[in-house]
């Protein structure tokens, strides 16, 4: 296969960037999108040009490191991560646009790499369960209802890649935050911090400069892990409940 790539090149966060065109030859349909970028980078290195910087780690679709907007879609045309996207999803002769996540809260570090530490700060604000250290507790000490376990697991699938923010026209982080809030709030282990968790994480999300939710549904469509849009509804409910509870205390 022969493709024409148009890639966002940007030296650092202070310099302006632009799309640059690269013809890529000999692309196998079995290559992943990142492997295709690897072959291009090898050529660029040999030619003396700076290789294209992009985030990647596990290449198994479970770490959430890859962050490419391909032809206007976060992670490209398939419902998976860019590392699990294969070149068979494209046709010979296609022109493919590759851009970084776009959001004020995700500044571009270089080329296709963005700084997603805003997500880490949202987690630090309440995306945890405080437990006293010591010996591991007995596994059945806290019974977890099956429905709660299923719901928690569905939300726990979020890998924090940020595709939701990249896809949202408002650069909103509601789907990410809601997945993390719901994951712990539905479990008995998360119950003691149920109210503070949602209030603090939402406050941090707003403080990071993410936009508000207008329920366009773009986030849930882009999410490689299938976190549903109703996750946001559940978080709204938790947030309103927490405000009622806190005001009574």
């Amino acid at each position, binding site marked *: 296969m022969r493709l024409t790539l148009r890639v966002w090149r940007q030296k650092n966060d202070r310099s302006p960037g632009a799309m640059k065109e690269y013809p890529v030859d000999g692309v196998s349909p079995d290559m992943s999108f990142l492997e295709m970028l690897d072959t291009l980078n090898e050529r660029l290195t040999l030619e003396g040009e700076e290789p294209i910087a992009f985030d990647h780690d596990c290449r198994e679709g479970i770490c959430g490191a890859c962050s490419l907007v391909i032809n206007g879609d976060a992670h490209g045309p398939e419902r998976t991560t860019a590392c699990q996207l294969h070149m068979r999803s494209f046709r010979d002769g296609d022109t493919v646009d590759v*851009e970084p996540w776009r*959001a004020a809260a995700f500044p571009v570090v270089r080329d296709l790499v963005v700084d997603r530490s805003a997500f880490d700060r949202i987690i630090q604000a309440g995306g945890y369960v405080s437990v006293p250290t010591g010996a591991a507790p007995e596994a059945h000490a806290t019974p977890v209802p099956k429905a709660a376990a299923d719901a928690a697991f569905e939300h726990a699938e979020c890998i924090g890649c940020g595709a939701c923010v990249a896809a949202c026209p408002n*650069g909103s982080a509601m789907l990410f935050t809601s997945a993390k809030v719901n994951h712990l709030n539905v479990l008995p282990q998360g119950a003691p911090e149920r109210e503070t968790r949602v209030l603090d994480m939402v406050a941090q999300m707003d403080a990071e400069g993410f936009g508000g939710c207008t*329920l*366009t549904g773009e986030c849930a469509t882009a999410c490689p892990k299938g976190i549903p849009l*109703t996750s946001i509804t559940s978080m*709204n409910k938790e947030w309103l409940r927490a405000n009622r509870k806190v005001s009574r205390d």
Partner: protein
Amino acid sequence: MALATRPDRRPTVVRTVWDSTIGKKTIMAVSGLLMLTYLAVHMFGNLKIFFGPGTFNGYAHWLRTLGEPFLHYEWALWIIRVGLVVCVVAHAVCAYQLSRLDRRARPVGYVHRRPRASYATRTMRWGGVILGLFIVWHLLDLTTLTVNRNAEPGHPYQNVVATFHTWYGDVIYIVAMLALGLHIRHGFWSAAQTLGAGSRTRDRVLKSTANGLALVLTAGFIAVPVGVMTGVVS
């Protein structure tokens, strides 16, 4: 003495709501639903125009005597008007602030653009502005009668007919009501999500209700100018 692990005090609920994007959306959802309730009653009352000037003008007069003798003449109407102004202002201020925030959150767009979201969703902001301008025109036309051709206080039937005998009266009204339908279609469903009422099992019901409300209200409101244009109401 135990150590205080969290010495900072939480802001008040009012502050939390006003400072949060979810809080502002909650204000928009509640004010939107109140306005929607008003519109349903308004639309229903409008249909009395098909029963002739006596019924319609009598209904308009009854609205002014609503709540008597507990309330004075026109007091009920003024209470509703004040409530509506509060709703419109709160709804618009939150929408403006959230829109500005949303634009700031995505300062650089994508080079590769593709159509996003449904038409109703994309037109919420400008649709809202159109509705705001329409309300101003609507009040000048049929409440203060400033721009009405008939302008007879106490004769709303004749004033309505006069409005819809002008081509611009029909165009402004029908365009605004189509914008209203689109606004309700996304707005009602969104309000349900914001207030936490949505769920996977309830989604179809909520979407159908939103579409039903949008359709019934738009059709009900548009029936009046269509009635005047076709001569059913004259």
